[in-house]
């Protein structure tokens, strides 16, 4: 499969740059953005966490037989065809082969027009469970939900991240950017201080990456399981001795949208392996 850590061939979205006041009002600057003022660009071109990972970790990701994330993807493939609910419907009943989801994961989080709020991929899958299958939603961070999410994400392997931040998504984006810069916890640090300002430095034994999420849901060696973006956010919060926010919370979704946007063009790695 393409994009599974194969760094040699990674398509990059051609990023147009903001060209100054002369272009005000014209089609501007950053994919997913349509409006009159460009959001501030991140101070770097995005680089995947893969590039900062240790060679041993990268080797596990690159090996289609050793990569433990593949178990989740296999389980996801089974669940895709497992009937549930009163109508005995599976994801396959409506969507057909999962390849129909090619590119989808690269556009999440996204506004769901029915509930008129930002949802991430796990929540979107649960919306299908309740809205279309008529079954109970999977608990967040549960094995089946992460498996389906990893499987749907796998269909976008190699695709560039491209979330939309215009329209209704705009206020979520602004909130996310605010959270990214807010100092929290006893350590009193903000995401931006590590993942924008100290990239490449060592925190104990860990090389600080840009904190990108193109590999999520990712298999984390430290936990021996696949983890959602939100659980990874919680971990960074806890390390700074800050109260983590709930998985699935609006604030983490807003933060996820901002983080996905600042990684625009990075290709989806599925399943990624991280320490």
């Amino acid at each position, binding site marked *: 499969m393409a994009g599974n850590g194969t760094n040699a061939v990674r398509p990059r979205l051609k990023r147009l740059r903001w060209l100054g006041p002369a272009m005000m009002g014209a089609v501007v600057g950053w994919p997913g953005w349509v409006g009159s003022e460009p959001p501030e660009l991140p101070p770097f071109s995005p680089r995947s966490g893969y590039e900062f990972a240790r060679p041993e970790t990268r080797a596990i990701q690159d090996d289609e037989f050793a990569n433990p994330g593949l178990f989740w993807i296999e389980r996801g493939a089974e669940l895709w065809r497992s009937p549930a609910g009163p109508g005995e419907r599976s994801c396959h009943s409506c969507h057909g082969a999962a390849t129909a989801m090619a590119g989808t994961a690269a556009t999440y989080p996204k506004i769901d027009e029915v509930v008129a709020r930002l949802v991430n991929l796990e929540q979107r899958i649960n919306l299908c469970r309740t809205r279309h299958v008529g079954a109970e939603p999977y608990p967040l961070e549960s094995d089946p939900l992460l498996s389906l999410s990893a499987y749907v994400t796998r269909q976008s392997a190699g695709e560039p991240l491209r979330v939309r931040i215009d329209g209704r998504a705009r206020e979520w984006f602004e909130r996310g950017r605010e959270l990214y810069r*807010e*100092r*929290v*916890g*006893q*350590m*009193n*640090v903000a995401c931006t*201080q*590590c993942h924008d*300002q*100290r990239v490449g*430095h*060592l*925190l*104990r*034994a860990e090389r600080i990456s840009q904190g990108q999420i193109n590999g999520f849901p990712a298999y984390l060696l430290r936990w021996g399981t696949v983890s959602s973006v939100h659980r990874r956010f919680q971990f960074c*919060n*806890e390390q700074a*001795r*800050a*109260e983590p926010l709930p998985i699935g919370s609006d604030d983490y979704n807003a933060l996820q949208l901002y983080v996905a946007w600042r990684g625009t063009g990075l290709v989806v790695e599925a399943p990624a392996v991280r320490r």
Partner: protein
Amino acid sequence: MRMILAVWLPAAVALAAAVPSTAGSDPIAIYQIVGDAIPAPLDDLDGDPVRGRAIVAGRKGNCLACHEAPIPEEPFHGNLGPPLDGIGSRASSGALRLRLVAPRTLNPDTVMPAFHQVEGLRRVLAPHRGSPILAAQEIEDVIAYLLTLR
């Protein structure tokens, strides 16, 4: 055990840091910033370099997350901040005290935590809420150790 020093505080920053939130049980010592230093030991305490080394090396101070130091038994030292070796000949005790207690007065964008602060923090994890990372005695211990690094 603690001795409250009622001093006049000219600097707004020092005042903000020193106003007790819960009178009587305040875990934060009152201190006075003079120029680039806090000259007087917190609560007039004496530091112990041996205890200080343990705090710097261990999880309590977690200084090695960001600094290299001559503590060879600990394997991984970070490099977000400068190496601490030789700091005892570069900095006075008062300068080190300010660096540990109120690093943002030196650099508003610093990632170095204020080790003796409880006010003005958001979403502090429950078990740590209301207590500083290091108590006054521990701050003095760390300073005593840093001063041996010459």
